[in-house]
């Protein structure tokens, strides 16, 4: 499978050339165009090998992903006997990045950042703790494991930051991070590792941050969708 990421960082899209019978899984609604001869199979976004007994469980898992994770409830598999080309794009402006999972690597991605994947890559919903649910700044993460490629979309440009020690990122600017050797905790921006400070939470304008410790990479987006929403809201009537 070959792929190109074009038109980044502002309006990146993912172009994939599928070999005969190769499959790429994409979030619902991401398709821009594809060549004839490719077939789209739609299924619940809840793991590949759900048996009959697991179907109901899969439904609730997909339901939870949609309403808690900001993800789509269904995903589409693109494939064809002759192969072909498919182009995928996310809803917001921004960049796309590519990561390879080898079965050992664990990647946490911000819930709405998933665009597409191949192979046995699967995502599981994770929460950044109850505190993260405050003020619409919730950090909802997906744990991404398995073997294959994964493509992740951002709102804005993406910076890669290698961490060896500790590092702090606003929750709204997190795209993804490596989960194997990085610990993370969500706290208010002003509490500096101590307790939760209501004053700084309410008045610093920074809301919640994620503090990382250990070693690994974190990817940061240069814009925050929550900030855009807060900016637009007062103009609505």
């Amino acid at each position, binding site marked *: 499978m070959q792929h190109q990421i074009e038109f980044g960082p502002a309006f990146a899209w993912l172009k994939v050339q599928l070999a005969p019978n190769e499959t790429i899984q994409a979030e619902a*609604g991401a*398709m*821009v165009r*594809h060549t004839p001869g490719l077939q789209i199979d*739609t299924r619940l976004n809840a793991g590949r090998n759900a048996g009959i007994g697991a179907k109901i469980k899969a439904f609730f898992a997909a339901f939870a992903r949609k309403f808690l994770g900001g993800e*789509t409830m269904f995903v*589409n598999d693109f494939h064809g006997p002759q192969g072909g080309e498919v182009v995928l*794009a996310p809803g*917001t402006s921004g960049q796309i990045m590519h990561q390879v999972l080898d079965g050992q690597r664990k990647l946490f991605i911000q819930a709405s950042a998933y665009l597409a994947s191949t192979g046995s890559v699967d995502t599981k919903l994770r929460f950044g703790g109850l505190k993260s649910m405050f003020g619409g700044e919730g950090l909802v993460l997906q744990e991404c494991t398995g073997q294959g490629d994964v493509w992740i979309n951002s709102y804005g440009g993406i910076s890669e930051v290698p961490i060896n020690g500790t590092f702090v990122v606003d929750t709204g600017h997190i795209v993804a991070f490596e989960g194997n050797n990085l610990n993370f905790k969500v706290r208010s921006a002003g509490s500096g590792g101590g307790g939760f400070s209501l004053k700084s939470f309410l008045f610093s304008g920074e809301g919640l941050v994620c503090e990382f410790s250990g070693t690994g990479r974190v990817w940061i987006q240069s814009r925050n969708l929550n900030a855009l929403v807060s900016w637009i809201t007062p103009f*609505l009537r």
Partner: protein
Amino acid sequence: MEFHVLYRPAHSLAVCNLNPNETIRAEAGAMVSMTRNINVVAAAKNPGEGGLKSLFKGLKRMALGGESFFTNTYTAMNQPGHVTFAPSLTGDMIVHNLQGETLLIQGSSYVAAPDSVTIDTKFQGFKGLFSGESLFFLSASGHGPVLMNAFGAIETIDLNGEMIVDTGHIVAFTSGIKYSVVKATKGLISSFLSGEGLVLRMQGQGRMYVQSRNPSEFGATVGRMLPPREN
């Protein structure tokens, strides 16, 4: 008349240089700046139309084409002049030079064209069954440049054969390409669930412009984060 587009692709601005007494017609609201000698008239979209006929054509375009009702003409009086245009969304703009062929343009992508280009609403669109998907095309024919805007970057494809394109990503295509509206997947229910709904099957030979973002997808993404409307 000569166009060039600055600040591509994110915040494109089109500059239209006019020779003395040349005229460009553009969608109301698109103008950013102009030289002092430009005379602006709110007018019918095509020259030689007037009165009731023009009024009905305008209403038809507004109701069907998702376009603004008014079109302004900008004329450089006696001297050269220039007008600049910008769309409301971030994204690229592109100029297609018509040489006698017909270009079908998605309603909200049309920005400007000179009098030598005839613009009309082709009732070939559809109202989608799901999620408010709808599609209307304007047809542009004649000779001269047509300025269009897109949401995101623009890919130019010279098609010879077939391609499936999402309705929210099409910008324009020449009439050598025939299109049909089809379900994204085999089944009706799965087409709905797939989030792709209805797509365009483009067949034939010609040029096609595709945008890298879908305005409705963006609206839906931001919209579900907004507080509910009060009334």
